[in-house]
């Protein structure tokens, strides 16, 4: 479902539910039957669900236009530098030495 299809689905859902609610209330009141109102409204909800919940084709009339691949190749995305390719630093081996003093346990780095 594209962007405009989503907007259409939401608007349609709200409008249909409101319309069915008003119609069901009027029907129930005129016929003097609460049950009729509930059934009419339930029918309206099911119909609205069938129309607005599945991804029908008419929600996909405005597909997104992506850039042409050739155009995309002309403006390549900046590649993130691979790890360890530019940073030619000798990998330090960190050795942790524990020191216990009266305040607790303290980590301390020590060069090899």
């Amino acid at each position, binding site marked *: 479902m594209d962007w405009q299809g989503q907007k259409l689905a939401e608007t349609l859902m709200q409008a249909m539910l409101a319309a069915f609610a008003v119609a069901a209330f009027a029907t129930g009141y005129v*016929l003097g039957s609460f049950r009729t109102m509930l059934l009419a409204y339930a029918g309206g*909800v099911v119909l609205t669900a069938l129309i607005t919940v599945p991804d029908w084709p008419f929600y996909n009339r405005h597909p997104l236009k992506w850039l042409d691949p050739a155009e995309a190749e002309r403006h390549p995305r900046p590649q993130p530098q691979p790890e360890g390719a530019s940073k030619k630093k000798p990998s330090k081996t960190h050795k942790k030495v524990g020191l216990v003093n009266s305040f607790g346990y303290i980590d301390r780095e020590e060069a090899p």
Partner: protein
Amino acid sequence: MHSFVYRLNTLVTFSVLLLGVLCAGASILDSFNSHSVRAHVEVLKVNRFRRQLNGNDEVALTLNISVDLQSAFTWNTKQVFVFVAVEYETPKNALNQISLWDHIIPDKEHAKFETQVTNKYLLIDQASFLRIPFCIKNLIIWNMKEHGSNLRGKKIELVLHWHVMPKTGRMIQDKIGVSSFQIPEAYT
């Protein structure tokens, strides 16, 4: 609205919200319904009027009840609970209410009827006594002296109450005084 479940969730939420609005609307319309109830209740006969061993007065009556509660029914009415109560005054309490008979009316077709019944619930007036202590040989005796409350010759009002129970919304209560009756002076 980007996925099936998301759209379904939105739809269910909004439809339940609107359902609440519908029910509230029905309830509001209900409160504009002005019902005119016609009812007549009269005492045909006093079957029994006696003093119980504990001093309470007990009355059994036969009532003729004719009620037309059809106008209390609207499209939002589940049932109507109706009961006949007696109301009277005693020196101790300004208002005493005792239910004699009740009935549940399930629908409009049964809302108009006439019936003769004995009271389902006995009319029992609780005696009130002054407890006066006096001593005989180190024993405290409580002399129960009647405090002037009994039903002999009492004028009682018969009142028809009804509670309209809606399918949704607030319960409506109302009552109408139907007749008055004087209880005989003598026990039977």
